[in-house]
């Protein structure tokens, strides 16, 4: 909000210094809050002794990170992608194939997959960002499905048989931990912190303002000198980069991947949903959304799914519907409103 007023503000204003100072203080506060929250999350896996709950934590952090990556393109730049499963799959497959077939360290695999995914995002963006609105979303779905079919029929990457990671002893070098979940929790948290920091830094930069302008009105943004096409391309590349890292971590975590289990359409939805639920285009929306969504789906499936009656899925669908109706701007908007109301009173 401050951003738009800054851009729109006349060149010289007596209150500009004051606004600048307040803005910097607010940024510092955000950073402190971030440091505090992430420090708490880093300690959390030690407090949870139960392996199953640790698994829920790993998934929550991972989906928060993946959703935050999606948020960069979908939330800030307003380009709703429903094909991020493609980048996730690229990361998962690049890491797995390099490690399993060629013995390349998964760390290098993560980097390679991320760069590959970013390049693919640029290659896809080149034609697709010329499409407006819903047409872009539809194109992303189709391209991701095509990617799934390609991988399913590509023997070099294991085709439909998938890739099984070897049973190695625990090691940070190979990202393999047989029973220990804490390293995975920290890896996922690391990715979340990285995506959060990138969002934090970019959101208030020239690029960030450009993205939000493109989201609000591409034509108006262009008339103000925002390079719409390049903005979208940059957002897509960053978003794909981190999504692929998440895919690689997921592969090392599950130790077995096949096309359906990393590239199916439901992943594309799962990346968008937490951000949408928590608050699209916000710094904390993805984490809040994931912290609600993932534990509920995991735990309800585990403790209600065994009945085979589908109660857990009804519950899940009901939750999404309630939020969509009651808080279309996401759960975070609850807090915003109370704060705005408080400010008005002052």
């Amino acid at each position, binding site marked *: 909000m401050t951003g738009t007023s800054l851009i729109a503000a006349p060149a010289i204003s007596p209150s500009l210094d004051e606004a600048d100072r307040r803005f910097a203080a607010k940024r510092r506060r955000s950073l402190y809050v971030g440091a505090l929250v992430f420090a708490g999350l880093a300690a959390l896996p030690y407090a949870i002794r*139960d*392996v*199953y709950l640790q*698994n829920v934590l790993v*998934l929550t952090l991972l989906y928060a990170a993946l959703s935050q990556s999606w948020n960069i393109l979908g939330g800030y730049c307003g380009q709703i992608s429903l094909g991020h499963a493609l980048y996730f799959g690229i990361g998962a497959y690049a890491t797995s194939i390099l490690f399993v077939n060629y013995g390349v360290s998964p760390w290098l695999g993560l980097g390679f997959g991320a760069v590959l995914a970013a390049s693919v995002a640029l290659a896809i963006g080149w034609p697709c960002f010329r499409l407006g609105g819903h047409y872009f979303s539809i194109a992303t779905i189709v391209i991701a499905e095509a990617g799934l*079919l390609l991988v*399913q*029929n590509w023997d070099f990457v294991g*085709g*439909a*048989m*998938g890739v*099984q990671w070897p*049973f190695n002893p625990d090691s940070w070098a190979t990202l393999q931990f*047989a*029973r220990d979940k804490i390293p995975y929790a920290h890896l996922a948290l690391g990715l979340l912190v990285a995506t959060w920091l990138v969002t934090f830094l970019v959101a208030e930069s020239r690029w960030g303002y450009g993205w939000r302008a493109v989201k609000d009105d591409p034509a108006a943004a262009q008339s103000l000198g925002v390079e719409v096409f390049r903005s979208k391309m940059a957002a897509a590349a960053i978003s794909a980069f981190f999504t692929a890292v998440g895919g690689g971590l*997921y592969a090392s*975590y*599950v*130790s*077995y*991947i*096949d096309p*359906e*289990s990393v590239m199916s359409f439901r992943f594309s939805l799962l990346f968008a949903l937490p951000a949408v639920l928590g608050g699209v285009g916000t710094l904390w929306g993805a984490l809040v959304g994931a912290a609600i969504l993932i534990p509920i789906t*995991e735990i309800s*499936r*585990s*403790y209600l*799914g*065994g*009945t*085979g009656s*589908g109660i*857990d*899925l009804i519950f899940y669908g009901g939750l999404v519907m309630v939020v969509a109706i009651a808080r279309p701007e996401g759960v975070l908007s609850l807090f915003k409103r109370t704060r705005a109301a408080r400010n008005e009173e002052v």
Partner: protein
Amino acid sequence: MLRRREILAAGALALAGLGSQRATAADEVVVGVLYALSGASAQNGVDARHAFETALDVINESHDLDLPAAKGAGLEGLGGARIRLVIADHQGDPQKGRAEAERLITQDKVIAIVGAYQSSVSATVSAVCERYGVPFVCADSSSPSLSRRNLKYFFRPAANDEMFSAAMFDFMDGLRKQGKTIDSVSLFYEDTIYGIDSSNVQRKLANERGYRIAADVKYKSNSPSLTAEVQALKSAGADVLLPTCYTNDAILLTKTMGELGYKPKAIIAQAAGFSEKSVYDAVGDKLQGLISRASFSLDLAAKRPSVGIVNAMYRKRADRDLNDNTSRQFTAMLVLADALNRAGSTDGAKLRAALAATDIPGTRTIMPWKKVIFDAGGQNPDATPVLIQYVGTTFVTVFPESAAVAPAIWPMNA
């Protein structure tokens, strides 16, 4: 924590149909059961539950059946302890299967896990079991690669797809010797680990044994239309069609063949969809004379009374007959109970050793197998498959001769 456990335990008990007969914790052996209970293959999970409940009835109550662990209530080797099941839903997702397996092992302290239908899920579940030293009895995933990973805690009493496909080609070789003309086969398989594995073996066997592959058609599972695929099969017009697909696709394939007027001369199916009752309810009239590989055949009841009795017990619960999948699930639980009796302990390593030493003659199972033993990879090499033919409204065993009730009607559509 405690409350959640109690709720869970109560739920599991209600499921297991034990109700108030609950034994004290000390007399209980907890076994994890992992299936997809929601999603596309949910029906299989529901049927599996009935199969395991039937097995539990046999094990926990006293029955005069010539089956392992049937006589006497509970597990003799463990002082009459009863088996209790904890059932979990993996939704066909390898990641969820892995997480549920960990939960069952760490929270519910299961002493073994039985599952998991989808081969991809069995792959991750068995890896978790290996890491925790808890035996995994693979009831019904038939991907050959599963037993090639040198896992110590993986046991598969039933045949894998390699053995199934070999039986199909043995059968065709036999027909050839009788003077029937079988020159070509068409492969039709879905694009999953199950379909690909099956087709790889069939392609290899066809080449080795001199059958021309007229068409080699891979299709997308759960696809909305199979028109193009069926047209390819029709124009190839092979002597035998070898389909590998699950329920929905099996129905769609049959319907599309009817619409396009393609009547294959013969069909030998890789079970799965073609052993599901729902397929025959929907399109059974178009499948007269279809032959499917099977782990199980009901007409074995004529030779072995226990088959009929167990089927009646299952029927009471599920309102349908035992099939290829449910019979394997039932047997997997009995194989586990037999090992528990011999181990006299629920310790993972001891139970593993007992499982590895399993030697149950086929006549003491409800299956047409030679016996139940395990090789180094955990595969039972003596799980002799049978071929069954759909005639009227039932299946008749036609191969191998030792189990056959009637000669095969060949070809299916002259």
